[in-house]
């Protein structure tokens, strides 16, 4: 019975959150300084408020472990929040500097998608992961292999 309640709760929570997207999901860089942007799209018919936090993370099974930004990682976001109009998009630009490589940063755009009938506020968190290595080629794949998330091919 608990499982059914949980499923129903998740369905209620997910209903107003339909149609928000982040792109791209990941980005790779090949130097200590990296800049880029990610775009949030509001496919709904009501305006949305988005807030963004940046955090360091260690890749691992199940999405890895997030933590506060490392002291060796410096992140500059041009904006940490936005109000996105219906069917509109908003691009968040960032600049990241890592004193030690490799390093990984995850941006977590958080969207207040509404509230349930019980008054519980529903928040949808999407993610944009940034992988920074010595070389950008296969940076993400190599990081995930090193973390054991995906298996390296046997030679």
């Amino acid at each position, binding site marked *: 019975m608990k499982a059914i309640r949980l499923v129903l709760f998740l369905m209620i929570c997910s209903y107003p959150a339909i149609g928000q997207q982040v792109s791209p999901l990941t980005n790779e860089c090949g130097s200590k300084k990296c800049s880029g*942007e990610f775009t949030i799209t*509001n496919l709904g018919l009501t305006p949305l*408020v*988005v*807030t*963004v*936090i940046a955090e360091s993370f260690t890749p691992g099974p199940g999405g890895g472990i997030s933590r506060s930004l490392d002291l060796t990682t410096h992140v*500059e*976001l*041009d*904006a*940490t*929040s*936005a*109000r*996105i*109009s*219906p*069917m*509109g*998009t*908003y*691009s*968040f*630009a960032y600049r990241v500097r890592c004193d030690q490589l490799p390093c990984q940063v995850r941006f977590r755009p*958080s969207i*207040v998608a509404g*509230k349930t009938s019980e008054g519980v*506020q529903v928040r949808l968190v999407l993610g944009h992961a940034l992988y920074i290595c010595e070389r950008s080629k296969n940076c993400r794949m190599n990081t995930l292999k090193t973390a054991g998330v995906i298996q390296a091919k046997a030679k």
Partner: protein
Amino acid sequence: MKWLLPLPVLLLVAASANCQTLMLNGGASSLLQGSGGRATMYLPNSTLSTSVGYHDGHFLVGASDTFLIDGFKTTVGDAMLGFSFDGVGLGLSLKGVSATRVWKEQNDCARLKPTRSGPMGYLGTCHKGTTSVTAFVGATGVGFFSPFVSTTRAQHIGSGVLLQYSVKNLVLSSLDVVEGGKHTLAQGTSYSSRSIRLAGSGGLLNSQKYFSGSAVFQPIRAWSLYTAHQSYFLPYAAKSNSVGTSLTVGRFNGSATLNESASLGRKITGENFGVGLHVGPVREQSAYYKSGQSQTILVHTITETMRHWTLTQAINQSIKGNSYSFGGGYSSNKVSFFLTRSMQFIIGRGYQQETGVGISLRIHDTGMTAQTITDQFGKTQYVAYIESYVQTGLQTGGHEARSRRGKFLLEGKCVLPDGSPVEGCAVVIDKETVYSNSRGEFSIRMKKRNAVTVSVPVTDFAAPVDWNCLECPTSTAPGEPVTIIVARR
């Protein structure tokens, strides 16, 4: 049937366009001496219009695209421009480029104190002055702008610019236009306050020297006094003066005007007095006009308005004879029609009838209008046109925005009295609204290192709770993090 020929071309062009809403117009008119069709495509970031038609024996093709670029509302193609300020009026038809933009200067709002009225946390307006500019360049000429065609027959090369600057109650205007060998260079100034409006302008208008001035004094809301003067110097001297007053007391209203004009050594004076009464759906207005020594006209008009119906009866009394007219109309969202009939006394022809009939229908997204008027010489003129909106069903993208790049970082934190962070706290920093994240932090980047205003509109918070702002700073500067303390009511 000539006017039907362009329609397939328009439909072909319109169908290929990637637009969400399409408006098609077609019509013909002997009154406007033309016929044709137009397709208007409403695109996400622009409005595109194409027209073809016949006007005054000429085949005309027109197109225009209106869009926003760097804050300039720009129209490329056929457009009708109108410049009007302080007694100056100039209209022209253009086949070229026109753009207009408004800049609003900001006061140092940080010095202002929060207002006591209005939404909590808002500072109100900080505008210091407003500058607007409208410029155009291209070919000018005869325009055929009707409900069904928008096109210009290019004849000359022209360009011009209108600059306006307003600060407090003062508006300064300057218009410079060169087109078709004629030059307009006019300067105007106006001052408006609650009880006084003064306006004056002078210069060249279509290569004619002129001066215009007017003043309105309204000591109380119901009573106003006004005076105006206009002078033209070339090609011959002409001037006109007028002075008048109007008063409204309850259901009664009255007005009086004295006019005087002089041109080519001939001086004409005119007097006009009018009184009116408004009782329920009935409005009666009587006016007396006297021009020179012999011409006097007394006009009585009664108008009844009942929901969708409007009926009008009028009697014109003059020493040459009386004339009568009546009319009526019905107006609703889907159907409207009118009928007017008047008896005019024409010298040498006696009483002659004038009849006007019009009908408009709207069925779903399509509207049709037809009007005819038969003048006192028995000639019937008509205007007929149709417009239809077509929903193409294409999905279009919405507004695209990106974060503001700047060198200087403004940041702060929104917390509860116990120091725990508040997410979704709305903070207006220099007109830009930012929201706090799950750590209660908010930030924005600025291009200048100036102090800027801060306000906290608690009604805009993301969390649906009644908030109260306990500690809300009104200004901040780069390098000075602000802390906002809010609490639930």
